[in-house]
């Protein structure tokens, strides 16, 4: 066996090694994979790793880190080497996880019901009544099917003797299943042969079970189809990627709190076509934020009245409100006795030794053995990082002991575990494996039979350092795919579509939420705005570079228009063209904090795109990500004017591919309609204001100005093909304003908008239509003959120019009025948030 792979791989007697036995031999279930790794050439491996990295970046698999001052997404770190678990070992893990899920569900049923566990002294009241996570308003609520815990995650670790232990229970809104899925999609393509030959169990069956389980619990009225939504706190949540990803994968609409509304004892989704009843809410939002009427009143995220719907049994909330309290580590010590009481069984997998300081003897033990223990908060709602006893000295130690003494029930102590180590591919070496501590997060979900299915696999989490005792994604850890091997056949069921077809990009329009439509509208506006400003900036930069920074009239006029349109900031004093304008041009491109800048537009574009992420295709999303990365990389490099032009070229390329996706790949539903309306309105406004200002600008009378106007409106090629000579005012205006066949002309935009408005007239009211069509009529009535003998380079705000400019600005005002009207009629009004009132 080639040993170079293991040249720097450490042996540890203090840790269990997933791959190597005590004598250094590779464990049987790892041999195939190890030999394969050994046989792959370094070049091949490089390619595979590149593929994995690219895939993660482009899919935007990110983990938002709260502590990051920029709030930036940090790419998900994936180690390509999976954790491999043999069939017999998995059978035990799986049975234990299913049993624990059933046990925790039974505990919730008791604590929100008869509370016999408290009456029998099997559980301290402090761990129920003393927790903010115990939601009093939920006492007595009977959820559909008697299921409180619909999905559950558990963190497992392996001790040096090879036994698995439970480290932590996740019962609120367990995260990571989506990341496990994404890891699988990447890693199974990095090692496709191994994935097939080793008989790795697929994950799809688990998600289908989850779908079926939720569908079965939907409290339907006669004639209704189950309507299941995934509730997310929004794009600022650390695991938003996963919410969008799972929503797409499971086929549930992704909604935020403001998309839902309670009327009486029913909860509805606000859609473009009215209210649509929701039967099941798969929630990724913490429960105390779910109903400001009865829970935390200070949050705008919630759905006022939701608890009343649950009380009436007319919605299944997964997990039930109030389930978070079981994530308390303090419960662990009481589980063996409770398991015997409630299930009549022995608890299959032990929990890590845990002492709840609220018990006198436990408190004494903790004080005596402080150095060997980790101190953690007893309640998941407490904000406190784990503290290692032996790391605390002097005053800090005394202070910690005092705090425990003062409120013993708020603390637990756990023994320190030496996590097992697993091989990880070293990025720093040519072909070396290194060892990193790992833990496994396993998942269970209630299935159609009301039992718990366990995901055959899970998220293997990798600690950052070789000696780490804590694994935290927030602290910069990585993850692995988990391969559970089977002796039997592998199920070929899949929820993934073979490729992304038109239907995947935009689902049927009936469920479109008002918020989604609003964001698509803005996505349309921002993508056009960003295209327009990129084009205008390129025109300016190109002129400036061509003349070597000289202040020609063409340069001056294009800069003036850019200022008038807000693409460039208005100069505070008379800047000489040259250095000053170069600088402000570059800022207008790269500085996201400057109002109206291209970078700022990219940011807004990403923002609205991130709110409709589950509706965008992967290709779509990848293009946006590439764009953002380009801008961020370029910003750091102090680019030259020439580099900036090259950047704008690429930006326009990405922009046109974005438009291509919108035109070619999106289903023609209401969402698409609003995206296009947004685009057309924005382009109309840009052209109308641009041409009007141009006509009024003295500087525009110079040589070469009509040419740049054509270029800015992306119409220079059409013009040349038609007239093949110098630009003159009459044909230029005809092409940019009146020619209905020019997709970059004013009339084309008004025609398209007019067609849409006709269809929406009954919903929107006639006023908006009339105002726009009136402005269009007046513009059409303009006599082009007035421009026929006009010497544009000599006229100074002559009557025909001024008349046309006024008509164009009227049209722009009508467009703005229409935009407001659409917002009033169709959108959620994100600004109009619920408020709490209180009377004594």
């Amino acid at each position, binding site marked *: 066996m080639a040993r170079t792979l293991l040249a720097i791989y450490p042996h540890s007697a203090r840790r269990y090694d997933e791959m190597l036995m005590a004598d250094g031999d590779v464990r049987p279930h790892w041999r195939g994979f190890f030999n394969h790794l050994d046989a792959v050439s370094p070049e091949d491996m490089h390619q595979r790793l590149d593929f994995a990295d690219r895939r993660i970046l482009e899919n935007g698999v990110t983990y938002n880190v709260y502590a990051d001052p920029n709030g930036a997404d940090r790419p998900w770190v994936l180690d390509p080497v999976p954790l491999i678990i043999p069939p017999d070992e998995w059978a035990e893990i799986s049975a234990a996880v299913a049993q624990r899920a059933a046990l925790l569900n039974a505990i919730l049923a008791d604590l929100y019901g008869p*509370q016999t566990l*408290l*009456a*029998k*002294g099997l559980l*301290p*009241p*402090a761990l129920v*009544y*003393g927790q*903010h996570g115990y939601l*009093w*308003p939920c*006492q*007595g609520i009977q959820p559909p099917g008697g299921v409180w815990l619909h999905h559950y995650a558990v963190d497992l670790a392996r001790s040096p003797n090879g036994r698995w232990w439970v480290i932590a229970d996740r019962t609120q809104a367990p995260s990571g299943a989506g990341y496990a899925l994404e890891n699988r999609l990447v890693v199974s393509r990095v090692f496709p042969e191994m994935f097939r030959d080793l008989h790795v169990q697929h994950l799809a069956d688990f998600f289908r079970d989850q779908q079926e389980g939720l569908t079965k619990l939907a409290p339907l009225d006669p004639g209704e189809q189950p309507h299941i939504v995934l509730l997310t706190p929004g794009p600022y949540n650390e695991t938003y990627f996963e919410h969008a990803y799972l929503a797409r994968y499971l086929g549930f609409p992704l909604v935020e709190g403001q998309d839902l*509304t*309670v*009327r*009486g*004892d029913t909860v509805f989704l606000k859609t473009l076509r009215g209210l649509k009843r929701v039967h099941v809410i798969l929630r990724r939002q913490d429960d105390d934020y779910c109903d*400001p*009427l*009865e829970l935390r*009143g200070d949050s705008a995220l919630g759905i*006022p*009245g939701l608890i*009343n719907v649950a*009380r*009436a049994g007319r919605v299944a909330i997964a997990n039930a409100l109030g389930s978070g309290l079981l994530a308390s580590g303090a419960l662990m010590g009481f589980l063996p006795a409770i398991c015997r009481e409630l299930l009549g069984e022995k608890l299959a997998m032990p929990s890590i030794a845990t002492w709840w300081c*609220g*018990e*006198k003897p436990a408190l004494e033990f903790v004080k005596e053995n402080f150095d060997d223990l980790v101190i953690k908060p007893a309640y998941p709602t407490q904000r406190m990082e784990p503290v290692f006893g032996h790391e605390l000295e002097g005053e800090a130690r005394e202070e910690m002991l005092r705090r425990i003494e*003062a*409120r013993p*029930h708020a603390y637990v102590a756990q023994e320190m575990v030496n996590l097992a180590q697993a091989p990880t591919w070293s990025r720093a070496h040519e072909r070396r494996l290194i060892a990193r501590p790992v833990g496994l997060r396993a998942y269970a979900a209630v299935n159609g039979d009301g039992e718990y299915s366990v995901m055959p696999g899970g998220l293997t989490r990798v600690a950052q350092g070789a000696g780490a005792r804590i694994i935290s994604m927030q602290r910069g850890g990585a993850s692995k795919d988990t391969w559970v091997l089977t002796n039997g056949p592998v199920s070929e069921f899949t929820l993934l579509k073979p490729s992304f077809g038109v239907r995947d990009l935009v689902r049927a329009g009936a469920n479109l939420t008002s918020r989604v439509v609003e964001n698509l509208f803005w996505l349309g506006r921002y993508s056009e705005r960003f295209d327009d400003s990129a084009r205008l900036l390129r025109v300016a930069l190109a002129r400036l570079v061509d003349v070597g920074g000289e202040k020609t009239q063409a340069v001056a006029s294009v800069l003036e228009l850019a200022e008038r349109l807000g693409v460039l900031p208005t100069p505070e004093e008379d800047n000489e063209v040259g250095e000053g304008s170069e600088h402000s041009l570059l800022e207008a491109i790269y500085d996201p904090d400057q109002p109206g800048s291209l970078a700022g537009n990219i940011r807004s574009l990403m923002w609205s795109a991130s709110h409709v992420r589950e509706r965008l295709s992967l290709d779509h999303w990848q293009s946006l990500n590439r764009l953002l990365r380009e801008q961020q990389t370029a910003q750091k490099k102090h680019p030259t004017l020439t580099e900036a032009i090259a950047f704008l070229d690429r930006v326009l390329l990405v922009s046109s591919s974005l438009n291509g996706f919108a035109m070619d790949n999106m289903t023609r539903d209401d969402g698409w309609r609003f995206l296009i309306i947004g685009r057309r309105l924005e382009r109309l406004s840009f052209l109308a204001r641009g041409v009007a200002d141009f006509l009024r600008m003295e500087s525009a009378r110079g040589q070469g100005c009509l040419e740049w106007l054509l270029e800015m409106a992306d119409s220079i090629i059409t013009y040349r093909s038609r007239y093949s000579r110098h630009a003159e005012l009459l044909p230029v205006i005809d092409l940019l304003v009146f020619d209905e066949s020019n997709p970059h002309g004013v009339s084309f935009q008004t025609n398209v908008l007019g067609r849409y408005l006709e269809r929406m007239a009954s919903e929107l009211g006639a006023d908006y239509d009339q105002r726009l069509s009136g402005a269009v009529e007046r513009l059409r009535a303009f006599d082009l003959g007035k421009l026929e003998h006009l010497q544009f380079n000599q006229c100074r705000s002559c009557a025909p120019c001024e008349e046309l400019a006024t008509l164009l600005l009227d049209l722009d005002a009508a467009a703005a009025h229409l935009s407001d009207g659409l917002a009033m009629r169709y959108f959620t009004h994100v600004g*109009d*948030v*619920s*408020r*709490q*009132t*209180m*009377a*004594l």
Partner: protein
Amino acid sequence: MEPVRYHVLHETSYDYGSPISLSQQQLHLSPRFLPWQLVHEQRIDIEPQPTWRRDGLDAFGNPVSWISFHAPHDSLRLRSTMNISVLSHMPDAEQLASSMPWEELRERLAYDAQPPEPEDLEAVRFLFESPHVRVKHELAQYAADCFPPGTPVLVGAHNLMTKIFEEFEFDPEATTVSTPVLEVLENKRGVCQDFAHLMIACLRALGLSARYVSGYLLTRPPPGKPRLIGADASHAWVSVYAPGTADNWVDFDPTNNLLPDTEHITLAIGRDFSDISPLRGIILGGGSAEPEVAVTVVPLDEEEIPEALRAAAEAVKAAD
């Protein structure tokens, strides 16, 4: 002693300035039954008519109503009227002195892996932190001198009530509904709600169970003057767990330094204000959201029942 009978009128009104498109409200405006309190008649009139309504009991046994309005409206008026008898239930000094030593009670309420007494299990609901009652070390320190070793729990509670009454100043400008207990402790100012929260926090910090009681207090008009409608206010006080007493719980009013008897009318009981705020709502739209609240408490045997209240009382009767 004869029960004392009261009419209570509790009016709340909102003028929002501009229309509210959606409103949901949770009402803790119906008095609960207690061993010493009998509710003869009670009703809530609401204007405009709610679109939807549900009545029930909350987790602490208080009557609660949820109402919602789905049509635009620019004002909301609630008028709660009740006819109630209150029996004397105040323990005398001897009974206070014969209550259990506080440390013994603390041990009894602590978990020992044995099945607890049913009344103790009921009481530990009120033993821990709640949204408005943070349990901090400073609070135990503040109360320490009221509870020398071996002090009967009710004597200690009485000491604490008196200490708060003497050291704190009643000042409606000093606090809001969300002022934290520690800030109240530091500034030594507040209203009945603050004093109740503070006293509860001190008792819980010592390991004792204490409940928050909301209700009304009879006020006496100046001699010779008629009773004014709406001159009274909602009131709040504390109830302390003392097993072995007649009702297991004894009320203390730290704002007035007295043991509530027949002049305190109980509306609801919770861990703190947040469990039983009389009217809590979520509205969408509108301008102002400041309510006007008016409370009138009239003993039924009083000769001069104000006209408006008599009309309200008769309306109740006519409706029944």
